[in-house]
């Protein structure tokens, strides 16, 4: 793009920002809500216009990804203001799950390793968050989340080191054993983990005044609290996805894909197999821990029964169905997770089945299992893989 064109774009952006700020200040009645609106809209405009700069993607891919992340996060944050508490709650739960899915997707798709233990890593993060909060109630949320991530990374390292030498089924089995044993591990440290009942967070995460002030005075606490939790989760999800996109495109990411496709060739080229495998494993466990910690935050509590082996199977199913090794796949999986129960109860209602009867209570499992089998047999790249494939084909056709 010419210098003149770039200057034109910059000028247009500046104009739009000024107009938005003025409009916001004029229209908003409550003092600071105008500021918030102005800030939000301006950030969106700026990031979108950065994104629109031609050639950015090729020359400065990191900036391009950052701009995309910022604009999506910004739009989502605004959206949460309008959503009901229930929607925000489901959205937050699904977003946290998509972080976990992204981690496993990366491990499997990018480096070819299979892990059935991500429910346990989620549990590590979830309990780390709760245990820390119960002993140090005033730690800022960002620090607590970071502590949870580090805990997940450490446990991932502990498990990942012996795992480097293991072939597929043995690694799967070892992670399975860990997932199954996790409940017993929690139980052994009863005094820290609260036994069967789990732990509650000492104080609920409440939004600061400037956020609560955005709502009219009659709005229930539930609405503003849930919006705040959803916002935190969305921010965390955005950062996690941004980091992963960069990792995927980096040299480490390329090395991992090389190992997945042909580990002998990778060795020949000089890639250190054990080190790369361990990095992938640790990244995956850290992401799972972040997801678990966010769940603790959202629910204000943590319960050992949540992080059972059944959850690991759910995670695996979602990754496969969403699409192994792709970023949109993880998002699709998160959406499916958030809404699958509602969809299935809708199906149950439509077909007139007794919702507590034998058949209906197993429908969730049966549908997931069948989807898993069919996906793996006929569309191993999952939904996003299939869509991407068709999109590429159409592009090749239109250009050919």
């Amino acid at each position: 793009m010419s210098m003149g064109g770039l200057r034109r774009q910059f000028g247009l952006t500046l104009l739009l920002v000024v107009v938005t700020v003025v409009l916001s200040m004029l229209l908003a009645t409550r003092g600071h809500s105008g500021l918030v609106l102005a800030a939000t809209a301006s950030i969106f405009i700026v990031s979108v216009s950065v994104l629109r700069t031609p050639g950015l993607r090729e020359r400065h891919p990191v900036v391009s990804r950052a701009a995309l992340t910022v604009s999506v996060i910004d739009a989502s944050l605004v959206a949460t203001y309008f959503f009901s508490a229930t929607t925000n709650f489901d959205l937050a739960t699904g977003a946290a799950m998509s972080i976990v899915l992204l981690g496993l997707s990366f491990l499997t798709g990018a480096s070819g390793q299979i892990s059935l233990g991500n429910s346990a890593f989620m549990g590590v993060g979830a309990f780390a968050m709760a245990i820390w909060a119960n002993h140090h109630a005033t730690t800022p949320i960002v620090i607590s989340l970071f502590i949870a991530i580090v805990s997940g990374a450490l446990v991932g390292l502990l498990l990942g080191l012996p795992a480097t030498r293991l072939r597929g089924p043995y690694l799967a089995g070892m992670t399975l054993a860990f997932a199954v044993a996790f409940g017993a591990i929690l139980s052994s440290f009863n005094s820290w983990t609260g036994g069967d009942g789990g732990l509650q967070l000492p104080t609920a995460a409440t939004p600061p005044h400037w956020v609560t002030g955005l709502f009219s005075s009659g709005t229930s606490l539930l609405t503003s609290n849930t919006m705040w939790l959803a916002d935190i989760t969305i921010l965390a999800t955005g950062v996690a996805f941004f980091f992963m996109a960069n990792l995927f495109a980096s040299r480490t990411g390329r090395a991992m894909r090389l190992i997945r496709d042909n580990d002998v060739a990778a060795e020949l080229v000089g890639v250190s197999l054990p080190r790369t495998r361990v990095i992938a494993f640790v990244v995956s466990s850290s992401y799972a821990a972040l997801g678990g910690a966010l769940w603790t935050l959202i629910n204000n509590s943590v319960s050992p029964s949540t992080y059972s082996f059944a959850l690991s199977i759910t995670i695996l199913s979602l990754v496969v169905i969403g699409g192994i090794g792709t970023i949109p796949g993880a998002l699709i999986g998160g959406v499916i997770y958030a809404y699958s129960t509602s969809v299935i109860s809708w199906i149950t209602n439509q077909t007139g089945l007794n919702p507590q009867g034998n058949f209906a209570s197993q429908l969730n499992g049966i549908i997931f299992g069948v989807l898993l089998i069919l996906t793996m047999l006929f569309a191993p790249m999952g939904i996003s893989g299939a869509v991407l494939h068709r999109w590429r084909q159409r592009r090749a056709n239109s250009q050919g």
Partner: protein
Amino acid sequence: MDPFLTSRIVSDVLSGLTNGVIYGLVALSLVLVWRSTGILNFAQGAMPMFATYLGMGLLSYHLSYWPCVAIAIVAGFAIGGLTERVLVRGLYGKPEINPIVVMVGFLIVLEGVAAAIWSTLPRGLPSPFSSIDWQLGGKPIAMSDFTVYEIVTALIVMTAVAMLFRFTKLGLQLRASALAPEVSRLLGVRVGRMLTIGWMLSTAVGTITTILVASNFFTGLTPQVMDGIFAFGFIAAAVGGLDSPVGAIVAGVGIGIILQFVGDYLNSNAIILVALAILIVSLMVRPNGLFSKSTARRV
């Protein structure tokens, strides 16, 4: 002699042995499938469970015990064969993750369908032999008619499988198909059929195991009955070596006895923790299993 036989240590050894032969049988089924088709069958507990329900469910139609067992075993053969033909055929040569995911999906479907048809309430199976422990001088020995029946049945099955592989033409063909499929084909062996038979045998062995397990009267038959046992059986197979039938049985019995002591002298949490530790340590020492003949890839 009496105090010795009823002592805590001997009781634990005997109970551990009883559990151990079950783990050994599960591990053996896994090895059968792995050696013949190179696939780790995550549904190794669920497929026989379904066959057991099919057979033993006929009890409510007033069929007597042994015919139901026979039907269950036949169902086991059928399910194993069908699974290989329909599901597994398309998975040979694909990336390692594919068969694992498909079998996990199959596991979920089987448990779901079983629960949909027969519900998750435990169903007591009548036992042909009493489960009440023998008493010696007023104290119980950890042996009952039923545990003897379990151990004897397990030994018979293991011996039968061993004899099949070693002394029969079918066994030779099975081993050849697994080891060198192309050569076997040239020599006239129906390799595809051998693979199917491998799965059929494995599921049939699994069905016998499931019936033994579910006949424990306070457990009963549920769709999840083999879940925990599959985990321990898998650990035994991994420790012994997925390609070693002898390793599977030895590891199974060993783990059964060790875990029984752990459960008795420590607590029930420690059982799965020690099992996990055994698995990790053994895989670190010999990543392909203790009794495996192949050496690990040196990375």
